[in-house]
């Protein structure tokens, strides 16, 4: 292993830790969950209410589950099922992605929704 190798590995690991800290320090318990398809907001649900919400698009369907303040994808007809197997999320900034359906589930804080409402 050369010196440059060690520097490279160190820099990459530090970058990983840096990004992780950046996201971690920002994260707090989320207020709502937003679902977007093709970058377009489909629905926003409060984390405080347990629900099952079915989203159908031209790509297929994903059933979003909100339970005890956590969000997961209960069922979907996508080919890879990565979104269904994804662990449940609850902190702001966390996402579940279903690439085949171009669907992103993201957790937002309470404040962000008000801000977005003003922008729109």
């Amino acid at each position: 292993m050369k010196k440059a190798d060690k520097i490279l590995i160190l820099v990459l690991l530090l970058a990983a830790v840096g990004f992780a800290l950046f996201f971690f320090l920002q994260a707090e318990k989320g207020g709502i969950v937003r679902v977007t398809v093709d970058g377009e907001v489909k629905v926003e649900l409060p984390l405080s209410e347990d629900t099952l919400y079915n989203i159908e698009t031209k790509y297929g369907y994903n059933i979003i589950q909100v339970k005890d303040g956590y969000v997961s994808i209960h069922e979907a007809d996508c080919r890879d099922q990565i979104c269904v197997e994804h662990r449940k999320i609850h902190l702001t900034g966390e996402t579940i992605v279903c690439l085949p359906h171009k669907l992103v589930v993201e957790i937002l804080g309470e404040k962000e929704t008000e801000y977005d409402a003003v922008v729109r």
Partner: protein
Amino acid sequence: MHRKNVAYYGLFAALAILMGYVEMLIPIPLLVPGMKLGLANVIIVIVLYFMDTRAAFFISLVRVLLSGLLFAGFAGLLYSLAGALFSFCIMVLLKKTDKFSILGVSVAGGVFHNIGQIIVAALVVENIRLMYYLPFLLFFGVLTGAVIGIVARMTLGYLKRHFS
């Protein structure tokens, strides 16, 4: 093209496709979209050192196209292609500087493969929040890249002793 090279191209391309298949058979918990072991990169790194840049480029391209069509379907092809090209460019650049060993080159390849894929994924879903996964991808990229570099170095030693 030299006759021996034709055989090498075919052999290494087949091995790279095989590695991609083996990787699919290993059930790793998918924490993050785009996370991969990158076993096929073992072959690409070996070719980069055992043959040359041109050979590695063609074999990488053939691997992505064929395994995309064989296993992943056309949609997955875009991600693989972005990842493979991005990682390949970085590996070639680092190798050219002559400051890095095969280990560093492989680590950079692993990391930038993941970064390339997540950039394309973020573009496809039109959501920058995918960058949330970046730290995980960086970390696993370093880990798998290092293991792959070690394997490639061992294999290369054997190849050079017996086949050059």
